[in-house]
């Protein structure tokens, strides 16, 4: 099993490249700014005080973490295929599963480390302002799960596309659909077409970014009104534990499904230079 060797390679490469440092720094700086300069009495996502600061951090993570996870993962395989290094790697005594899992674990670790460093610095700032550690840790766990989900989706895209540019375009499209537009556009469509509420609730749980948002808000402040009508309905129906559980299942299912589909694509594909043949 050569997965640990490949994981170390990916992790080392990520740390060596600029994106790891840039992601961690941007995330930390934005989080600390929210903590330090935020108005404690103001309300954000229905929360006040420390919950308000963390809710701000969560809003930031909803847009930023999927992006910082999907950008390196979509090029992880497509980039190597394009440069010809994938051929040589696969000509070694490795299985395709080894190579795929090594890359997945490596990019997941690097992205999680970015989140951890960013959150860690924010956590220090939060502790200095008297914020209890448990909501920070819970939100951190959810954020890492969100990152892993988007790494899995990004790597699946990477396994199916021949070039770095095409993989990046597809990755950005997925990010815009799931994180950029969020539920706003979908909600508008639902209102426009008069679709039932349960369908919108299902969509909120099925969209990993929305699932993360719902879990985060419930974790931070169960009395919050920031869940919106859809989230509130879901909270009434499933209860706090149910919302958190369903959200976690959604994120894990996305990650597992994308990982399985990516493994399948990668195992079946012919590798020849910058082409993918099935």
């Amino acid at each position: 099993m050569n997965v640990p060797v490949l994981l170390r390679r990916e992790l080392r490469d990520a740390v060596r490249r600029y994106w790891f440092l840039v992601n961690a720094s941007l995330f930390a700086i934005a989080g600390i700014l929210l903590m330090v300069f935020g108005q404690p009495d103001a309300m954000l996502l229905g929360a006040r005080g420390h919950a308000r600061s963390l809710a701000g951090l969560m809003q930031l993570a909803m847009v930023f973490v999927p992006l910082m996870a999907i950008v390196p993962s979509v090029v992880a395989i497509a980039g190597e295929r394009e440069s010809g290094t994938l051929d040589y790697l696969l000509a070694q005594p490795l299985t395709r599963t080894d190579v795929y899992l090594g890359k997945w674990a490596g990019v997941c670790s690097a992205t999680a480390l970015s989140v951890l460093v960013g959150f860690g610095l924010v956590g220090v700032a939060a502790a200095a302002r008297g914020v209890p550690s448990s909501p920070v840790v819970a939100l951190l766990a959810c954020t890492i799960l969100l990152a892993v989900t988007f790494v899995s989706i990004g790597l699946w895209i990477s396994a199916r596309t021949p070039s770095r540019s095409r993989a990046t375009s597809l990755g950005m499209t997925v990010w815009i659909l799931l994180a950029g537009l969020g539920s706003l556009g979908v909600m508008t469509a639902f209102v426009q077409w008069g679709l039932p509420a349960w369908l919108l609730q299902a969509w909120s749980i099925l969209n990993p970014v929305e699932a993360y948002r719902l879990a985060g808000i419930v974790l931070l402040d169960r009395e919050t009104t920031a869940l919106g009508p859809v989230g509130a309905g879901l909270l009434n129906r499933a209860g706090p534990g149910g919302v958190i559980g369903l959200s976690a299942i959604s994120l894990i299912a996305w990650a597992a499904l994308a990982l399985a589909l990516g493994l399948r694509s990668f195992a079946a594909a012919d590798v020849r230079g910058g082409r993918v043949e099935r």
Partner: protein
Amino acid sequence: MTAVVRAERLTKRYGRRTILDGLDFEIERGERVALLGMNGAGKTTLFRCLLGLVGFEGRLTVEGLEAGPGARAVRSRVAYLPQLPPVFDQSLAGFLELFAALRGVSIEAVVERLEQLGVAWAEVSGRPLRALSGGMLQKGYLALALAARAPILVLDEPTASLDPSSRRDLLRHLTEVGRDTTMILASHRLEEIEPLAERILVLADGRIVFDGSLTDLWGVTETERGLWVDVPADEEAAAAAILRSHPAVRNVRVNGRGIGIAVEETAQLDVLFHLRHHAIRVRDFRRLTPSLEDVMGRFADGHKRGPAGA
């Protein structure tokens, strides 16, 4: 002798295009086999099948193990030197450490091989791969392949990207590879194949059109071996007449820069002595090897021959 590589009806298609069309061949342990063919003949695709980079129809076995994308055990028996060594975003030391670990060999063994290839490890180990010359990069990959001690060494046009000096250097190292290693190489250069391979497989349109020795190849394709002789300008006409009188010489061509003659290898030395005997001052001479285009042109003309000389 034991077959280490065996292909039965090996076929590879990309969509409607057939790249390998039902190949049947065996390669014995310790053999040196050269794959000849024009671009697109299927040489690299055959290697890709062997390494499990692509799926295929038919059977391909290595030491009795089925080759294919899932055949990790096959890849542990095959060391590979690519046509254009890919440039990983790493230092030479980082690259060699990674792939030594993946192949399960020690970095010391790779470094030892590299130093045997004339590379000063201490000087180059920290350099990024992108900063290395083509020759140096190729040596890094060759050191890895040799240190792996795989029973089969696959070389895909190993000198394609090298300058003449690096090419000579690499070929010299390849001729020193022990007989415990089966060597399969693809090349465009017939002059390179001669010292390296005793058996030639000629691929054209995805089929084997010749399987035999290089000498057999000249015979089958009726390709003329030759000699180029440089003599003083005032002796050129006399030299040409003397050469025409030699029974082994055919087709004498004088072009003002020397004399080109068609003559079998075994008679070439005798021809040079013949000139000297007639007081012609030979300033320089060079053996002329037919180009791949010459050989493939002959096959296109209909000099086809089935596998194993059938």
